[in-house]
């Protein structure tokens, strides 16, 4: 087991890539979990009957907004992708990384970069509308009443944007591995043509 891990992380660029993938995995997973468990219940006074105030209970959950649902699902998918790539890098050290496998890793990384950037941006703009409201469309802001909900959402967004930056670096590294195939984690040589 230790020998496998050692073989997979030989070379400094391998260690850096593995570390980046671990960071991206933890960032997107924490973003998904924090937003998924985001829920706040508050009671407000909505009116008065004579002298007694009428209270109503309102809940703010993440699945009231489709953009946040997309955010949770996309972050879960990207963290699963990173987990798969980490497992491939650690336990797949004996496999040959020839053309098609390397290309599929690069293409999957690119698709996940676009997915996570879309999810993070959609949630960010919806959160901006929720925080500032929009007086042209007459939408009230909700962050003054549900402060904890907004804070947790902001934390999840920060984690997701960190995941975006990390995924971009990882994707650039994967594409550069296409140009120099012998660089990392391929124990047997790929086709020996000078690039």
């Amino acid at each position, binding site marked *: 087991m230790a020998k496998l891990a050692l073989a997979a992380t030989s070379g400094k660029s391998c260690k850096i890539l593995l570390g980046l993938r671990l960071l991206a995995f933890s960032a997107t997973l924490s973003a998904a979990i924090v937003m998924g468990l985001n829920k706040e219940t508050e009671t407000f006074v909505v009116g008065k009957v004579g002298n007694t105030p009428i209270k109503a209970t309102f809940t703010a959950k993440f699945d*009231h907004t489709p953009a946040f649902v997309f955010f949770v699902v996309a972050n879960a998918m990207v963290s699963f992708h990173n987990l798969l790539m980490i497992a491939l890098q650690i336990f797949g050290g004996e496999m040959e990384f020839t053309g098609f496998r390397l290309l599929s890793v690069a293409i999957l990384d690119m698709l996940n970069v676009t997915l996570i950037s879309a999810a*993070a941006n959609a949630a960010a*703009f919806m959160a901006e509308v929720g925080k500032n409201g929009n007086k042209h469309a007459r939408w009230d802001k909700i962050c003054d009443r549900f402060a904890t909900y907004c804070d947790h959402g902001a934390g999840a967004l920060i984690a997701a944007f960190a995941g975006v930056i990390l995924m971009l670096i990882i994707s650039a590294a994967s594409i550069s591995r296409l140009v120099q195939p012998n660089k990392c984690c391929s124990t047997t040589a790929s086709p020996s043509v000078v690039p």
Partner: protein
Amino acid sequence: MVKLTQRLGGLVLRFAAFCAALGAVIAMITSRERSSFFVISLVAKYSDLAAFKYFVIANAIVTVYSFLVLFLPKESLLWKFVVVLDLMVTMLLTSSLSAAVAVAQVGKRGNANAGWLPICGQVPRFCDQITGALIAGLVALVLYVFLLIFSIHHVVDPFLLRKS
């Protein structure tokens, strides 16, 4: 002969993406509608919502970028850089489209839990034009994903098919 058709295919894709992004920008900018609501008349324009402003800016950047890359000569050394820039431009396109769709969906359906009413009932022509702009943005995004795969296949040559 094969190389000529490949280069022509790349040019056609990029020109189509340029047209789609330009169409999205123009459709979003010219969407402006005045509606009267009892005695109040309100004007709905794209700059009321931050997500639409970001959409216009991102698609404008993509338009300019595609136009510039159309004129890149074939033997230039910048083609490897174009692959990286294509990836970043695809990220920009998808993030702007996703944000605009998220906000437009609230405008069309409202959000009952937050007390936000839909606005499309009062300004239907504005809503239709925004929908058209978003569809053009989606077409530009799909074309750029094809272009990205195309650039990687021809520039980076992962299967090492070229014998140069």
